[in-house]
């Protein structure tokens, strides 16, 4: 069966619901369509937490798909997301990761915008084309929404209402960011995975105790919890780590203790379609912003936080834990980065990737869907959402 888009008309989506064509991980034409239909299409993308740009004039640069965006804390306290591109000749306005400014000036022709995105003025304006109006040249503003201080945006007017998009994930996101999202930034880790973005997003519970030795040491796979998929193809993984872990061969186990007095230690992962992750592992509060660099590369920015109410000792503990548990050299996460590039290389072979663990029937899975412990079937809901967004028809 042919897909609707001419460029990708040779892609065949398998008829079996537990299969995904490997081609979607590496074809350039598929990637271009993903940018259009998913990254610039009707989905929301997590870009920042308010604490990263806490003061008026603070800004942060980010990327949606391959489009540069600028998140600005306005002089009026409102956080806005703009295309990071001058409305004159498209010059990128800000290049550093974060900063603060009274205004936003384009270096090329010195067009000047205020922190609300309005064009204040431009040199030589009297000689501009007749009928030029400053108000027509404000920075392009994206639809923006905020939940617990987490800033999301979309290029699309057709994206669902933000509350509907988050849906059932809302209480879990709130819990992950300390209940109210009053956070304090601790720092970043940034990594480039040699992998398609969908392989990065395809992480599931099946591999957890099998790939990650530390998961066995921490007994995460045998703790109580719930995993479910929402109607918007988001996944919530909520495990309470009630059992005292065996610290195995480690000499300094303080780095993997749960010390937050307000919370039973949890492994809480909210995976939002397409590529946003909100995580609370033990005492690590972590937002993961990700974007594709190409079909073959995905960049992930891990932002770590403490809660504003934390005492100094707990902040220090969160810094130590975040610096050692997660990221490109993390005790419990290095193995993911080490397997993504192998998935990507392997996906250049013919045929389909398959999901087996927890798949119970031949047809599509209805949402909300409760996953069994250590299952991978929930990812098929993500894939079905992806297939429909891309317009691929089943064979």
């Amino acid at each position, binding site marked *: 069966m042919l897909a609707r888009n001419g460029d990708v008309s040779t892609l065949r989506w398998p008829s079996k619901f537990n299969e995904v064509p490997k081609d979607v991980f590496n074809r350039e034409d598929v990637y271009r369509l993903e940018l259009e239909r998913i990254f610039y299409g009707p989905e929301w993308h997590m870009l920042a937490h308010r604490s990263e740009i806490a003061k008026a004039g603070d800004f942060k640069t980010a990327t949606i798909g391959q489009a540069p965006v600028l998140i600005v804390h306005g002089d009026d306290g409102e956080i806005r997301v703009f295309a990071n591109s001058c409305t004159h000749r498209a010059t990128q306005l800000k290049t550093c*990761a*974060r900063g603060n400014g009274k205004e936003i000036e384009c270096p090329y022709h010195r067009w000047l915008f205020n922190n609300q995105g309005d064009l204040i003025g431009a040199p030589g304006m009297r000689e501009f084309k007749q009928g030029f109006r400053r108000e027509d040249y404000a920075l392009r503003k994206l639809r923006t929404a905020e939940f617990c201080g987490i800033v999301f945006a979309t290029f699309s007017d057709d994206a669902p209402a933000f509350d509907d998009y988050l849906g059932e994930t809302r209480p879990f996101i709130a819990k992950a960011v300390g209940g109210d999202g009053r956070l304090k*930034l*601790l*720092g*970043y*880790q*940034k*990594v*480039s*995975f*040699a992998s398609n973005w969908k392989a990065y997003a395809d992480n599931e519970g099946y591999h957890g105790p099998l*790939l990650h*030795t*530390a998961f066995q*040491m921490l007994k995460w796979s045998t703790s109580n919890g719930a995993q479910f998929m929402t109607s918007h193809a988001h996944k919530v993984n909520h495990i309470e780590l009630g059992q005292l872990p065996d610290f195995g*061969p*480690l*000499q*300094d186990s303080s*780095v993997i203790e749960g010390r937050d007095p307000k919370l039973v230690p949890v492994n809480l992962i909210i995976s939002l379609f397409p590529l946003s992750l909100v995580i609370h592992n033990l005492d690590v509060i972590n937002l993961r912003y990700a974007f594709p660099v190409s079909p073959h590369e995905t*960049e992930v920015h891990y932002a*770590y936080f403490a809660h504003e109410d934390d005492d100094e000792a707990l902040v220090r503990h969160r*810094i*130590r834990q*975040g*610096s*050692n548990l997660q*990221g*490109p*050299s993390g*005790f419990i996460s*290095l*193995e993911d*980065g*080490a*397997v*993504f*590039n*192998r998935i990507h290389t392997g996906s250049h072979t013919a045929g389909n990737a398959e999901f087996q663990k927890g798949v119970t029937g031949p047809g599509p899975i209805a949402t909300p869907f409760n996953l069994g412990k250590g299952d991978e079937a929930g990812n098929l809901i993500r894939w079905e959402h992806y297939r429909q967004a891309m317009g691929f028809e089943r064979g």
Partner: protein
Amino acid sequence: MVDAAVLTQIDDLQSRYMRTLDRRAMDDWAACFDGQGSYVCIARENEEQDLALAIMMDDNSERIRDRVTYVTKIWVGVFEDYTTRHFVQRIECRQLQPALFLVESNFMVAYTTSRGRSEMLVAGVYKDEIVLGEGGAAFRSKRAILDTTVTPRYLVYPV
């Protein structure tokens, strides 16, 4: 002006450090630190903004020993291995106390995958506190500050 004999001891320690990592001799890497030693690998972005979050933070000797355990026991068999080549150039050395020196050195680390392709892993600067004792020089603290804010794939070995 730091005495040439002292600089020789300091440079010998840096060479030993490079050698142990490039030869993946993790126990010998841990032995480059004194009993109170610490090792931190952090992005320049965090360092310059007073954000303490690091990529690796071994702030006591037990943590340094645990990093050896990560590499030699916990992660074994799950990653595609790579070799590294460290290149280090001392750019500044100041005496803080009679036997304690603050040493700054530029570094570049190349890595080669099992497919035989070499690329830059990270570049940056070491800010080290080095103690001279009867047994020679050792790191009291080693801080690898990465200009390479976005690191490739995964970092198995310390830098």
